[in-house]
């Protein structure tokens, strides 16, 4: 007879409440212990069980029971050690004896608040439904009206401009003897970079592990130096390795300054030794995944290298406030900061703000439209990723990128500034793996470039995270892939060369696919920014909202 206390399970959670349930196969398991050792959250543990077997031999029942001790792998029911479904256990199992299974009936969010601690995680919005970007189709195909282009043979120029383009009326040109000559005469010509229209978005050294950041940086450099593709990458907040700051490769990087100003002491001190200007400066005001929220690099991620780059003591929490605390108004925050950053590099570097997708994006846009030093506006939609945020911010806050970018573009069209102030769209680009198609759709809605983050982690470093809340442990520093951790035991799993190779694969593939989209539409010379007649959607209301065709 079991004691009464063992029968009182009322205060325990059943496995049915958990988002993933471990399917363990006794018959296959050789009890090597790899799965329990590798589990980043200790959701499974080896356990000893007593098996009682009742047998009876002979024609008359004469039951005898035998007790046997056995070893099993067991999933725990502690909510703080919930199985995240990452599947690292499956990865290391030699006998395919274990795998997590999604439990769609789970009541995880009902319980993941123990101790009054709201659920925090990494990743992006947990919404696996098809995004607007993936519903957009390219429906204007040149065929018999004119010969379509051959994506394999024609010359394509898939490039965009990052920086403020002076309108023709303000160009410092005058005619001399039938030719135009430059006559600056005090006219400020803003710096403009020609870049690849897919950028790698801001992910910091610190948020990312050293091999991950290094792999991305190597991939980007290879693309520029060997493949001739001017792909650029944003540093994220937290500076850059000092040697890189002083290297000729700095021109492939966008330096980000955010509300914590981490890394900027080092950057400013490296200024006299810089041999190249950075591609641009991004001022982060918001992030699509957690609008209005700040950043936090947990103390256990602030190891020696990170502390040095950021110019802070080791092992302290590094909080970036939700807003730039030294600024009290949009004039302060935008105009002065843009000018200050421009001035630091002698007005040779484009400086642009990044905001989270919001209904108020147009207010920011119009402020920038009147600011001659603003180089672009980057808008990060609700499907953007993050290394750490409250679940509620990620799931419920923010604005989808499609209509946000479209509204902003059409606003610029009204003002005749659609080429003057480039828009960069981010947030959910490549969410379902359709990188080129999502990028092309955003460009045709009006973006000059797109930015990717989560996608590149998934594709270049096999990040487990998805929109079913798989893994999403970035905030804990226990990333099982070694992508978002500063623990050498974890990040040594990641080979930076392999990451770099994958980055190159991804961009070369995207380039081919972009040609495959642009060629049938007859576009090859210039990026089809705002070519909205090329797009359709199978939803009438969406088509009206986006001012594009409805097709079914």
């Amino acid at each position, binding site marked *: 007879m079991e004691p009464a206390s063992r029968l009182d399970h009322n205060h325990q959670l059943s496995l049915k409440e958990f988002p993933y349930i471990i399917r363990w196969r006794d018959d296959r398991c050789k009890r090597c212990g790899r799965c329990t050792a590798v589990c980043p959250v200790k959701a499974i543990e080896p356990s000893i069980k007593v098996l009682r077997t009742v047998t009876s031999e002979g024609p008359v029942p004469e039951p005898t029971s035998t007790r046997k001790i056995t070893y099993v792998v067991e999933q725990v029911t502690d909510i703080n050690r919930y199985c995240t479904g990452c599947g690292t256990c499956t990865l290391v199992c030699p006998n395919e004896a274990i795998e997590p299974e999604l439990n769609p009936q789970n009541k995880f969010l009902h319980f993941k608040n123990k101790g009054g601690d709201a659920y925090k995680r990494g990743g992006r919005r947990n919404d696996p439904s098809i995004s607007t970007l993936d519903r957009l189709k390219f429906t204007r195909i040149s065929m018999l009206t004119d010969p379509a282009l051959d994506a394999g043979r024609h010359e394509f*120029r898939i*490039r965009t*401009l990052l920086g403020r383009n002076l309108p023709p009326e303000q160009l410092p040109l005058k005619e001399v003897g039938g030719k135009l000559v430059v006559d600056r005469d005090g006219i400020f010509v803003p710096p403009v970079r020609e870049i690849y229209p897919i950028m790698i978005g801001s992910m910091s050294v610190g948020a990312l592990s050293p091999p991950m950041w290094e792999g991305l940086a190597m991939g980007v450099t290879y693309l520029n130096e060997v493949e001739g593709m001017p792909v650029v990458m944003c540093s994220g907040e937290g500076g850059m390795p000092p040697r890189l700051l002083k290297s000729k490769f700095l021109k492939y990087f966008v330096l980000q300054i955010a509300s914590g100003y981490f890394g900027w002491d080092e950057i400013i001190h490296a200024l006299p030794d810089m041999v190249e200007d950075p591609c641009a400066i991004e001022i982060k005001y918001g992030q699509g995944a957690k609008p209005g929220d700040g950043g936090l690099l947990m103390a256990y991620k602030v190891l020696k290298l990170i502390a040095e780059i950021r110019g802070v003591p080791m092992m302290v929490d590094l909080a970036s406030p939700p807003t730039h605390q030294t600024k009290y108004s949009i004039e302060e925050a935008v105009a002065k900061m843009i000018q200050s950053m421009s001035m630091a590099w002698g007005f040779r570097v484009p400086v642009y703000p990044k905001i989270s997708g919001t209904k108020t994006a147009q207010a920011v846009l119009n402020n920038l439209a009147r600011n001659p030093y603003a180089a672009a506006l980057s808008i990060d939609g609700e499907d953007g990723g993050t290394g750490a945020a409250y679940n509620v911010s990620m799931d419920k806050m923010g604005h989808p990128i499609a209509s946000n970018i479209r509204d902003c573009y059409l606003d610029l*069209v009204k*003002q005749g500034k*659609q*080429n003057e102030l480039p828009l960069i769209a981010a947030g959910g680009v490549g969410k379902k793996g359709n990188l080129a198609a999502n990028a092309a759709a955003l460009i045709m809605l009006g973006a000059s470039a797109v930015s990717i983050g989560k996608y590149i982690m998934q594709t270049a470093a096999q990040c487990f995270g998805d929109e079913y809340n798989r893994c999403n442990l970035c905030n804990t520093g226990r990333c099982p892939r070694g992508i978002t951790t500063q623990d050498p035991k974890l990040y040594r799993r990641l080979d930076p060369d392999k990451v770099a190779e994958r980055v190159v694969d991804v961009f070369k593939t995207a380039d081919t696919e972009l040609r495959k989209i642009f060629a049938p539409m*007859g*576009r090859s010379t*210039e990026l089809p920014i705002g070519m909205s007649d090329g797009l359709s959607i199978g939803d009438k209301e969406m088509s009206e909202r986006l001012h594009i065709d409805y097709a079914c």
Partner: protein
Amino acid sequence: MCRLAAITSSEYLSPMEPILALETMKEGHDGSGLGVMMKDLGGEFEGLKDFPVLSGICSNAGMEVVDEYMEKKGFTVKHSWAPSIREVKGVTRRDHYFARAYEYPAAYSDKSAREKEDLLLKTRLELRSMGQADESIIVFSFYPDVLAIKEVGDPLQLSEFFGLEDSSLKAKVVMAQGRQNTNYAINLYACHPFFIQGFSTMTNGENTAFVPIREYLMSRGFQGYVGYNSDSEVFTHILHYLVRQLGYPLSYYKHVITPLKSSEIEKREDRDVLDLLKKSMRMLCIDGPNCIIGFTPGGTCFMVQDSKKLRPGMVGGVKGRYALMSEECGVDSAVPARDRSKDIFPMKYDMVVVSPGAEEVTVWNQLHD
């Protein structure tokens, strides 16, 4: 694909000549429309070079509205031309086809040419707007020494319909387009050549970058950048924008609509200029495939195309008479007696420019010149 025929000459010529050239290229147009744009007018308009000519089509009611409006604005009719219409099967006759030379309102006698041009444009746009809903008023051009005729139908049949063979209408520059209707419903405002303040162009090929270019032009804040019933109208407006509004020499039209690659710009002495133009006017890159033939207010004719235009247009002729056509057979029809070895098939970097009076033809090379 539409067929294009332009002839520029030191002598006055009949509009029939380019129309007959179009007939030789008939396999390329389906007779869905004809547009003729004449500049440097002869015949009955020869003595009226300073007087703006309003060309259009009206219903009876529309004509009354035009007369009333023009009178109210102070324009007085100096000379009026109307074709002697002959009924032709397949062509639906409208009430009034006309070209009228007007005297400027008295208040404009001392105004600058630019102010007069703006008045003419505004007047044309207002007339267009007044008659747009019921198609009672259709106006193609209102400018000195320029006349336009357009109608739906087969070019040769239309020339018979308008009685052009026996007409006294003549001009030194005549552009004609035979329409291959593709993207849009047949609408006379979609019929080339397009015209704005002395600039005219006609095009063949699909303009795949139409929407962004249209939006960019419409956002320039210039009243004349409207219409766009055809994707080709933007080519005329880009020309006008660059040459008239920005004051650029004609060759920069090529640089803007088909910019050089960055690697090519780098090798040029004027790279700063070209780099600024390319970036600033990124939205005006046409992305083809298109062949554009046009004229400027000064009477210069040109042909230009982009790199995707796989079969180039052609320019051929003799001093005093050059033909700019989309097909060689058209040039053969217009100037049969010429040195064929001097025929020009402009390639992707070329812009063929024929000076006023067909004095001289030059090939301006975007890469080297």
